[in-house]
């Protein structure tokens, strides 16, 4: 009976989230910004009024509001800024989603293994995570790009290499405390295999932590991707990515200031939104992390 109570405690905890969430004030502004970002990313071809890479020298260097056909103006090659920003959202969401997904998957898997296995497996994974966390992300990304060359898949790899360790460390810590609970012991006595215990009994209890770490990482991942694109280490020039757009607007900053201003504003707004949302999630789901 006791073990049953502990087991249902898990469900109570999951059900308790919406209750707490209802009590807390929802961060509406971040949610709206995130919503706009996701809609832009998902429906870019439908929403963009023009071709984001279509060059039209006749309409080059229009300031925002100067010509209502191009509400946010055009760049030095006459490409529509609004369309490029919308497609840039797609690029940012795609890269961060894949990179963060890869990092979270690898990190969580390694964290689960390190938490349940003692001995050299744990030591090896923990030390590798320490090393990855202890290294500046830009430097890691630069080494990756030097070895493999620039390109979208290498940017994703570079970002994933820098985020997996946070997941591994947090999940390992969670597993270490969960595996001592009664329901795990009960499952073990019932003859459930270790992989099954990890997957069915321990992993569901780490989902809160996983969600908090993920939402706190999105902003940093978007920033890192933008920085790498800005440095020319990612997508090829001309591609609609916010970091590249800022870099393209840099040379003519005094003349065509909106080229660098607008994508930078987009990055800042999105990162702010995710950071605030991540803080809110952490307060709701994991109050003990609040001080960290």
């Amino acid at each position, binding site marked *: 009976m006791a073990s049953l109570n502990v087991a249902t405690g898990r469900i109570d905890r999951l059900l308790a989230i919406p209750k707490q969430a209802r009590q807390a004030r929802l961060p509406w502004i971040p949610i709206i910004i995130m919503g706009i970002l996701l809609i832009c990313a998902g429906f870019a071809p439908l929403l963009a009024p023009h071709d984001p890479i279509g060059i039209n020298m006749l309409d080059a260097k229009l300031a925002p509001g100067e010509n209502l056909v191009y509400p946010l103006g055009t760049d030095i090659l006459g490409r529509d800024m609004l369309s490029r920003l919308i497609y840039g959202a797609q690029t940012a969401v795609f890269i961060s989603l894949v990179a963060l997904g890869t990092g979270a998957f690898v990190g969580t898997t390694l964290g689960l293994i390190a938490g349940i296995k003692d001995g050299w497996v744990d030591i090896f994974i923990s030390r590798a995570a320490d090393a990855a966390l202890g290294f500046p992300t830009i430097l890691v990304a*630069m080494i990756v*790009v030097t*070895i493999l060359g620039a390109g979208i898949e290498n940017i994703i790899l570079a970002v994933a290499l820098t985020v997996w360790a946070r997941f591994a460390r947090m999940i390992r810590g969670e597993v270490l405390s969960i595996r001592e609970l009664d329901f795990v012991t009960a499952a073990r006595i019932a003859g459930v295999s270790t992989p099954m215990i990890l997957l069915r009994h321990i992993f569901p209890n780490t989902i809160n932590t996983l969600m908090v770490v993920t939402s706190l990482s999105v902003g940093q991942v978007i*920033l890192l991707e933008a920085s790498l694109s800005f440095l020319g280490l990612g997508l090829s020039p001309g591609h609609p990515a916010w970091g590249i757009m800022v870099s393209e*607007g840099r040379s003519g900053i005094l003349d065509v200031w909106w080229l660098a201003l607008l994508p930078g504003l987009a990055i800042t707004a999105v990162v702010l939104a995710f950071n605030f949302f991540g803080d809110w999630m952490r307060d709701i789901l994991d109050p003990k992390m609040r001080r960290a």
Partner: protein
Amino acid sequence: MHRFIIVRLSQAIITLLVLSVAVFLSVHLTGDPAAFLLGPDGGQTEYEQLKKNLGLDKPLPVQYAVFLGSAVQGDFGKSHTMGRSARDLLVERIPATLELAGVAFVLTIIFGVPLGILSAVKRNSIYDQVGKFFAVAGIAAPSFWIAIMLILLFGGILGWLPTHGRGGIEHYILPAFVLSWASMAGVMRLTRSSMLEVLDSEYVKFARIKGLSEKMVIYKHALKNAVIPVLTFSGLTLAGLLNGSVVVEVVFAWPGIGRLMLQGISQRDFPVVQATVLAAGFFYICTTLLVDILYAYVNPRIRYE
């Protein structure tokens, strides 16, 4: 204590070795250096000869040992594109990066700590709100964009400050500010939360009950304990600044290691990349090592088991 230093030191050496392997392999995984140096017109005999001269006919572990041996002496070979040894280029650029990181570090401390204290002491006041906004913006806005916007404002529209290159004091203002903003935000937030915690503790309450003035309570009693975590964080900040300068150096055309590294990568100039990446990694690892040892010295509760 000795045990801690030995464990931590061996960790640092292992990290450096792993980095050196990655850097060494970076040349071998991206193609044949001999073919790259020879160009498309080279014949087979010349190719074999060059391979022998470069030591590329030996097995990989031997090549790595040779590489490591010369790397320890700072010898990375000649830059393919700049016609000089990578070591000379590196030595020439190191002071610029160290200076910029140093100035940014000083800015981080002299603004971050007092503003954090102000935010904590006058909690929820207008200072706190402005400070919070400044910190949140510093963490969310990409540094390359802030740099360009400041160039537009102070260099272009107002014309008050130079926007690129190294020179007099005025050349340091913009790059150092951009470089330090994010770390300043971190120091501010940490000082604020640490100060709030200390102000809530029993001994501070007791100091108040004793009838000490608020000034005495804050500066004489609370501050000393509140800055301990800030000191540790500052050390790590310095390490981060040394390497965070890649973006800032590129935007402000600052002649430092970061810019040299990016030049090397974009031109596939391997000796330069190897020299700069190893130098940056070395600085980073040494700084974090020093901070950890100092911290363990100051706070004996932190030890590796």
